[in-house]
């Protein structure tokens, strides 16, 4: 694909860059939030919950990255990460509010 690079329009390159950024940073955000949510909601003692959350987070990261490149547009890549991020942040916030953490 690089060989064809000269023929590719600027908008395509920007879209790819946007997807890469979404995958690396947005994906990390979702993974980190997922680990926090799991840690706060799992009925385990805190050390065990932390270890479980961290162990699972990489699977979430993987799925998030795949999503960024599988979806139709670069915009939907960002939306598809930000929506779960907001939900996860709310759910972990709720755990704090309920005094689970």
């Amino acid at each position, binding site marked *: 694909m690089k060989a064809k690079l000269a023929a590719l329009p600027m908008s395509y390159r920007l879209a790819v860059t946007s997807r890469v950024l979404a995958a690396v940073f947005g994906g990390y955000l979702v993974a980190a939030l997922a680990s926090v949510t*799991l*840690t706060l909601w799992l009925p385990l003692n805190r*050390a065990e919950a932390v270890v479980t959350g961290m*162990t699972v987070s*990489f699977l979430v990261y993987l799925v998030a990255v795949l999503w960024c490149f*599988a979806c139709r547009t670069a915009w939907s890549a960002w939306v598809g990460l930000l929506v779960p991020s907001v939900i996860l942040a709310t759910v972990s916030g709720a755990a704090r509010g309920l005094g689970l953490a």
Partner: protein
Amino acid sequence: MKEGFRQAMAWLHTWTGLVFGWLLFAIFLTGTLAYFKDEINHWMQPEIPSRPLDAAASLTLAQTYLQQRAPDAPSWQITLPDARDPGISVSWQQAPARPGERGRFTEKILDAQTGAEVPVRKSFGGEFFYRFHFQLQMPYPWGRWLATSAAMVMFIALITGIITHKKIFKDFFTFRPRKGQRSWLDGHNAVGVLVLPFHLMITYSSLVIFMAMVMPASLLVSYGSDRSAFYDEVFPEAPTPERAGIPATLPAMAPLLARASEQLGGGNVARVTVINPGDANASVQVARASSDRITYEYGNDVTFNGVSGQILDATPAKPLPMAIAGSFYGLHIGHFAGPVLRWLYFICGLAGTAMIGTGLVIWLGKRQLKHAKTGVMPFELRLVEVLNIASMAGLIGAVAAFFWANRLLPLSLDGRANWEVNTFFIAWTLSLVHALLRPGRKAWVEQLTLAALLFTTVPLLNALTTAHHLGVTLAQKDWALAGFDLTCLAAGLLLAWAAWKMQRAAHTVRVEKTRRETTRPITLEQGTR
């Protein structure tokens, strides 16, 4: 990326694989060598003699030595010999000259039978490959971050590779030799699928090993800035009493071994730590060998009072999440593996390395074909070619150079261990320069030939520079030393074969290239899907 899911995944596979391929090749190759870390250590420090194992006798020798040489040290560390590591290692840290400073750290290797200090050559041995494969010779913590990021990319490349490769089992039985680009692809798929469980395990576990560093969010939320509280809960350690300042005799520690083994469920003991030896508040920590079971547990030990011998504390059994994380760790490092399984680990690691290498070759080969007619390669393809040569053939040659340096550098050289490492990097840099200066094919052939020459002659070099040549080691059944020589010989022969194939391909490719380019361009395009 509009073409559909599988094409999108193929795109991701191609580009993650290219950008991180060179680094991953180095991580996989050095990591694979690290499975034989102890054997490489043994070869690189052949002065340490192999003796029949007797843990109690070894511990007594270590204790006698330390009581003479370091009676006032705040702590002693004793590592007992095992089947793979023949010497007793004793180390201690001197009390600091001024408070707040770190005391001088000394390590000595003792003969497991006589207890005499063995004058060993300075070398990092296999430890160098082990450290490099996750620290990449970079300052802490950057190397670990980069290596773990590469592992995440590897994870993505693996999964996208599986998705891309729809006919996973059908294609596995398809190997079309001597078909150029096709054969590379078939080889890539075969090694990829054959050891797929290993690839998934090794990649995912590498993420788990450094998870507290790279994914600390949940840790920070639960513990705030007090990270040590987390580690205290995960790896509970017995609080060791403060120094009393009253002298007391440390009794013979050998009987503690059997008692510790009983406490640890019949495990083997690997390491003994004595805190405040010769003090009324001395304590002795006896830690089990990590080769005992799959789950790797940091600090699985029994603590004794160093005067009365009373048990102060034993590590409790781990809860399930920690046991799972510990199992991933243990599976990754493979300390539990016996000789057969260790070789299987080694072969799987080589298969992983080969999978990455063939992937890089395919990427370039497919794009080179488009420029075969003009014979002029665009800059980016030439760059990939040079990096392919230096990162694969160059790295293999550098490993051989590291072994050669171990035998040829003078024993009295200042910073000798560092010079071995420097030789490795100098050789690697030279291979990059060479790849830049020579045409691609020729650079491949020349570097592979040189690496083949260096590896095949390792047994000869060993025979000329030490008394531990194959005639002796085979007769003594010292499989670590003999195995090292023989493995180098086999590696050299394999590299010679690769160089020969490369040389022949260079002759035939010119004739075939134009024909294939015009008749089957569509098949080649599909070949990567």
